């Protein structure tokens, strides 16, 4: 059709801009308040499979049972996987290059995702790292500012 040829297709810019507020729940709130108030990292253990979870869970996904066996974990652990990030993205928690790592804290069976900002050249799986707590803590996962290679 003639008019289709003679019509320039336009685009329209826009956004979805809404504030979200995710409830953390009792289990997560206990974890995050301990992080914030005491600088302690808590985990919990499934009564059935004995997996120690961090962050702690209300229930074990695999066993489908509620968990209420709490323990304090170390603030050190081992890198089980890592990547050095070199592309920019405005939600990144640090300028590039920085690394994401999965870190298995001492006493835990699962690994926690976090950030490593220094000595990236020495970063390898198996490396030991220690949590660096933020000075101003407000009850979220960035109350651990990053992990530092030991």
């Amino acid at each position, binding site marked *: 059709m003639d008019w289709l040829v003679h019509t320039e*297709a336009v*685009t329209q810019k*826009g956004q*979805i801009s809404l504030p*979200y507020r*995710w409830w*953390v729940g009792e289990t*997560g709130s206990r974890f995050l308040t301990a992080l914030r108030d005491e600088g302690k990292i808590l985990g919990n253990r499934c009564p059935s499979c004995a997996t120690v*979870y961090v*962050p702690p869970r209300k229930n074990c*996904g*695999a066993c489908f049972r509620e968990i209420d066996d709490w323990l304090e974990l170390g603030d050190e652990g081992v890198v*089980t*996987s*890592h*990547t*050095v*990030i*070199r*592309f920019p*993205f405005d*939600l*990144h*928690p640090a300028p590039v290059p920085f690394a*994401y790592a*999965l*870190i*298995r804290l001492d006493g835990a069976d*699962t*690994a*926690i*995702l*976090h*950030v490593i900002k220094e000595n990236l050249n020495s970063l390898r*799986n198996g490396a030991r790292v220690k949590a660096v707590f933020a000075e101003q803590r407000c009850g*979220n*996962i*960035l109350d651990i500012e990053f992990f530092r290679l030991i």
Partner: protein
Amino acid sequence: MEKIAIVGLAQTKFERRKPDKTYYDLVYEVTRDALEDSGLTLADIDNVITVSNDFLDGRTISSMAVGEAAGGHDKNISTVEGDGTFGAFYGAIRVLGGFRSTLVVAHSKGSEGNVSYISNALFDPIYQRPLGIESLASAALQANSYMEKFGLSEIDFAKFSVKNHGNAWNNPYAQIPLTITVQDVLSSPKLADPIKLLDCSPISDGAAAIIIADEKTAMKSAKKPVWIRGIGHCCEEYFLGDRDLADPRALRSAAKKAFEMAGISNPSREIRVAEVYDAFSYMEPLWLEGLGFCKPGGGPELLDCGVISRGGTLPVNPSGGVLSAHAVLVAGLVRLIEAALQLRGEAQGRQVEDVHRALAHGINGPCGQSHCVWVLESD
């Protein structure tokens, strides 16, 4: 399982940006073309599954924009939010459950949203999303785990990018056929170690549709029916740190179900061609392992010894794979379409010889948390 078949299919050319096409246009075009391909009319179609995602489309109830374009007026219609292989799964079980024929149509336009923001929303809002993680960084963690577990190298992965981009030259629908070397991949810009630019699939716009029908309807369609012999899907744990990222156990479970249903005991021997969801170069070998085509860590060897190359005994992604065109959600449906084209003998330049059984595979969630496996056969 009763006999059901793929009787119609269509896909668009995949491009970085289709500025003149709306979702509605894309869905209409592949719906029209799939009907034409099948020789059926809309009256033969008694139900519709659309596949879309509200984040990708920037619209709540994204299905609302396309129901009419998918021929859904006055029909039983539903929407799967996930990869097209999952949408097709629902389409197939609707035929098994009593419908005559399901039109399944998927669309996405990676050009319209911000892929990083959208994939950041896949992650846990309390513990992960504030860290800025998204699909590329999480994939890099998986690639790193996989390399370290089996002593693989970036070269091993780069070879898959070389193979699939080369295969894409034979596929007129592919977005980026490339003649590249392993060195080109290795020296492409580093994004998230060990992933470099040429290890990544592109951002794409496009759509695809298939028609799944019962035996009676299949017999009156224009094309050779492609019989669905086995289907299975499975999802593993959500948190990356709860998973062994180098062990695709959900895929193993999905494949087991599909193979059992299809009566397959030795997939390497019994399947002639496979189309798998290689969003990054490391994924193809990892998924081949999960599908039981090799021992753990053996994926790169399959390529080195020629098994999965175009002339091999089990060519994988002769279409060029997701690495050569990645319209999210659509890409899994395209794997099904490409497998079906192989079985029909209509794959033109990318046709593999003597195909009687083919496999297609799609994924959902971060790092292939959820997998869907299909076994298709010709008569």
